[in-house]
């Protein structure tokens, strides 16, 4: 009788201890998965809308901005107001202070057989589409980099948290620096990628596209299902 009670009590206390361990470990894992500290940041909806440009008359009058925008901007003399433009020179390094990007040794990227832009083979490097315009020239210069490697964050890990108005500077081979300001940051499904929006004509402006991966990771293909694209234009 006493034996049974004893062993039953022992088993009971072991079960109680196991319960506590399971609760603690399980609870920790659930909490950690919800806190999402490991996942790369994704752009929110507010960042994907284009910035309001001061030029159009349709924009609502604002007491603080209308006097300065009326006098501060010189009227476009011709129909083709392209903004600043630079001569051709390949990029050598990229700085985005607001998200801690400071990367040197930008590699040349080409297209694969299906026409897709190939990613840098080195997770620690950014690459640029070498058959397109150089950053600062007319058209959309493209710089891409990985969001992560198999083991942790890569060059563009924080691209999804980039905000409108942030500055991006590209040092070029000729010693000059092309400075851009971010217009918007958006996330697109790779299956329905807006090729023309991202790589198409920029109506003469010198622009920059920063591309990395986003959304969910598909274990079967080994790729993320979305791309995060930051759109920026040259300011100086």
């Amino acid at each position, binding site marked *: 009788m006493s034996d049974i009670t004893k062993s*039953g009590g022992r088993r*009971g206390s072991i*079960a109680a201890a196991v*319960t506590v361990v*399971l*609760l603690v*470990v*399980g609870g*920790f*894992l*659930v909490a950690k*998965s919800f806190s999402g500290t*490991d996942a*790369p940041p994704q752009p929110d909806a507010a960042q994907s809308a284009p910035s309001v440009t001061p030029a159009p008359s349709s924009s609502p009058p604002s007491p603080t901005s209308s006097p300065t925008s009326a006098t501060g901007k010189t009227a476009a003399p*011709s*129909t*083709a107001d392209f903004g600043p*433009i630079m*001569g*051709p020179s390949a990029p050598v390094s990229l700085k985005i202070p607001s998200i801690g990007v400071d990367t040197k040794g930008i590699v040349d990227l080409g297209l694969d057989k*299906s*026409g*897709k832009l190939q*990613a840098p083979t080195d*997770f620690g490097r950014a690459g640029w589409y070498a*058959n*397109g*315009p*150089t950053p600062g*020239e*007319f*058209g959309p210069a*493209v710089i*891409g980099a*990985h*969001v*992560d*490697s198999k083991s942790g964050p890569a060059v563009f*890990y924080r691209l999804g948290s980039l905000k409108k108005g942030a500055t991006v500077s590209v040092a070029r081979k000729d010693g000059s620096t092309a400075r851009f300001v971010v217009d918007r940051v958006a996330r697109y499904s*790779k*299956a329905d*990628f807006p*090729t023309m929006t991202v*790589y*198409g*004509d*920029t*109506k*003469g402006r010198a622009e920059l596209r920063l591309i*990395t*991966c986003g959304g*969910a*990771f*598909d*274990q*079967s*293909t080994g790729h*993320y*299902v979305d*791309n995060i694209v930051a759109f920026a234009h040259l300011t100086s």
Partner: protein
Amino acid sequence: MRTTSKIASVALGSAVLLPFLGAGVAQAADGSTMATLRPVALNGVKGSGTAMVTVNGTRIDVTMAANGLLPDAPHAAHIHFGADARHECPVAGDDAKGDGTINTTDGGPAYGPIVVSLTKTGDTSPKSGLAVDRFDTAPGGKINYERGSINVSSGVAQAITEGKAVVVVHGVDHNNDGKYDGTTKSDLDPSLPTEATDPAICGVLNAAPAGGMDTGAGGTSTPNNEGMLLLGGGLLMAAVGTGAFTARKARNRV
């Protein structure tokens, strides 16, 4: 745990893969090309530009922007292609006469003859190659050109999508006097000075990238967190079981 998530992602993945492949094929066929227009060797132009040509069968849509050209002067602009050409922009070595400039004859071996005239109105065939009254006059040195639905031959359409066609904007001012003049005549039309037809800026039409980029290996991805959530949840469920067992034992003792 690992096996479960693997099976789940394989099932999910195969569903995702099909539309993915379909999109790749469709985009490869749509034929968007871009040229970065840069100064032609030896001709002293500081300008630059971009051109985009989208091919749909034997119809092309063209947009082009350029700056740094001689202002208020007609700039003949063409798509060039020749099967025997190098499909490039001319280099200093193409100056056959050694006169220190590149004229249209010098440019021929690099980019071939005119196949499309990028006129603002009317005919776009090679016949309009020097229709100076129908080309952009670059007010302020700038061109902002757009023209849709230009008909081309299937051979030209193919050359464009294969990266063998070259966009050339002509018209330079060698002596910097603000107009086309000089004693040297154009080798295309002796009634024009060579300044009016010498190539100014040039770029090969190359396929624009199509589709997204594969820029991540998943080391920080969300599915890891989902796995963590499932594992954590499983442990909590187990805790309910062992907890119930403990409770029953405790009850038995009373």
